[in-house]
């Protein structure tokens, strides 16, 4: 076992599948955005907004997001631990079980089987599959870390462990349910407890699946791309631990002004604001790591992705706490401002880092430079502009919507009917369609670049020399 080489074949496979699911997520996202402006594009019972929207979110989070996590973690853990994966067979099982789980999720959601819990819509048999999948992944990563040849653990490994443990706990607790049949279950919690547990899961899934893993990637791929170390490893450790101590208390900010006890709402609000510190600890660490290297923003396309990615993380973690404050939440909650916020995080922060990570991996897993750097640059501008069109139009829409909902006549009656507020949204929803199309054009260019690199490149048959030398 000690003489085995690094396993890059599994990284290649996860890159491929994550990108396929990413395309599904964006394509379905664009379709549902058109369904919002053209209701005739809904074809009941299967191809309606209600059924397609969870496919968009789940394909995005679990197919694209988690797929990239699997690809990058399986690469990073081998490199940072200077040892091959603990089990290649387990990794292979993980790959096919991952795809089986995503397909089962998509099919059942399309058929209308849902728990109705946002971001956790899949019914209990698929929850069981997800838990098996995650345990297989966790065992491989943890065992590889345990047999590492490097004494100290670099910060990326800390974030990886946090993500693995965090997702396991959050998902299992929120999945607790009483099955009534093969495709129907009832939550183990009732009333406000159910809502509270659900948003404890919901917001912390953002933390453990869409914050900790991209940070692990950022801390690994930024210095690898610039060739200089991060500004401060100690700062990254403190930012890590403060994030871990604070994040888990913030979920109830999704439930402000609801029957959830006031003290829980206040607690969530307070911790949400405090979260600015660890988030910006990482942002500053990223920026300060660029001291003397800012010219690389022009020279190295990877740096553009990584620095814009961490910038969107910074903006996201300022906007998020702002939204978690009661008075501001009262204004914008339930408006289109909220999806704009989420999409700055997913299309800006998470995907920028994911694209950069995959571009970094390509020459190493295919043994050939990226097919076209100009195309990678073009993709950067398309996804940046697409995301900005998407988010900015819906921020404006959200403020307009909130203003109209709150407008009152002198006699206390509402100034606008709900339908009037809906009609005002149309120009912004069309802009969202446009933003989605531009973003998808960028994604298609990315896939073409990846395909051509794979086709013209020569797959690296593991880094045998490196592994043998370090085993």
């Amino acid at each position: 076992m000690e003489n085995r080489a690094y396993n890059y074949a599994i990284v290649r496979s996860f890159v491929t599948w994550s990108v396929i699911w990413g395309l599904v997520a964006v394509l379905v996202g664009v379709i549902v955005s058109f369904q919002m402006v053209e209701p005739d594009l809904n074809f009941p019972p299967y191809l309606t907004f209600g059924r397609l929207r969870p496919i968009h979110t789940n394909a995005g989070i679990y197919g694209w997001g988690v797929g990239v996590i699997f690809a990058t973690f399986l690469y990073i853990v081998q490199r940072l631990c200077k040892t091959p994966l603990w089990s290649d067979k387990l990794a292979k099982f993980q790959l096919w079980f991952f795809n089986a789980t995503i397909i089962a999720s998509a099919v059942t959601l399309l058929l209308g089987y849902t728990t109705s819990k946002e971001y956790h819509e899949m019914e209990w048999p698929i929850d069981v599959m997800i838990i098996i999948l995650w345990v297989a992944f966790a065992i491989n990563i943890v065992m590889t870390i345990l047999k590492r040849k490097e004494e100290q653990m670099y910060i990326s490994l800390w974030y990886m462990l946090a993500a693995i443990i965090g997702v396991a706990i959050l998902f299992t607790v929120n999945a607790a349910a009483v099955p009534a049949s093969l495709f129907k279950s009832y939550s183990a919690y009732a009333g406000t407890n159910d809502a509270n547990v659900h948003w404890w899961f919901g917001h912390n899934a953002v933390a453990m699946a869409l914050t900790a893993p991209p940070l692990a990637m950022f801390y690994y791929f930024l210095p690898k791309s610039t060739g200089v170390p991060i500004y401060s490893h100690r700062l990254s450790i403190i930012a890590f631990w403060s994030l871990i101590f604070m994040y888990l208390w913030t979920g109830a900010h999704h439930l402000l002004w609801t029957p959830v006890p006031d003290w829980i709402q206040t607690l969530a609000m307070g911790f949400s604001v405090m979260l600015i510190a660890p988030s910006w600890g990482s942002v500053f660490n990223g920026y300060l790591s660029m001291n003397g290297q800012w010219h690389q923003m022009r020279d190295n396309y990877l740096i553009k992705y990584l620095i814009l990615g961490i910038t969107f993380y910074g903006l996201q973690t300022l906007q998020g706490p702002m939204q978690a404050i009661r008075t501001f939440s009262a204004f914008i909650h339930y408006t289109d401002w909220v999806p704009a916020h989420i999409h700055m995080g997913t299309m800006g922060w998470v995907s920028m880092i994911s694209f950069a990570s995959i571009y970094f991996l390509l020459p190493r897993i295919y043994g050939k430079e990226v097919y076209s750097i100009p195309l990678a640059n073009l993709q950067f501008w398309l996804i940046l502009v697409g995301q900005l069109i998407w988010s900015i139009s819906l921020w404006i829409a959200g403020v307009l919507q909130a203003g109209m909902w709150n407008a009152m006549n002198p006699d206390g009656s509402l100034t606008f009917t709900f339908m009037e507020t809906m009609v005002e949204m149309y120009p912004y929803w069309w802009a969202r369609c446009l933003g989605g199309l531009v973003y998808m054009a960028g994604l298609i260019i990315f896939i073409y670049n990846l395909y051509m690199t794979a086709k013209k490149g020569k797959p690296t048959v593991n880094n045998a020399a490196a592994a043998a030398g370090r085993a």
Partner: protein
Amino acid sequence: MDLSSALYLGVTFGLFVVFLLIVIRTYSKKRKEEGERAKYRMLDDD
């Protein structure tokens, strides 16, 4: 204060102390070099 409230308070205080100890340990002058070593080592692995 009932038992559960005291327990919550104790756990909160305990977690705060743990965090404080992590900060003190990470930023102790004696451990400065060791604390920053990983960022250089990670660049060696390629």
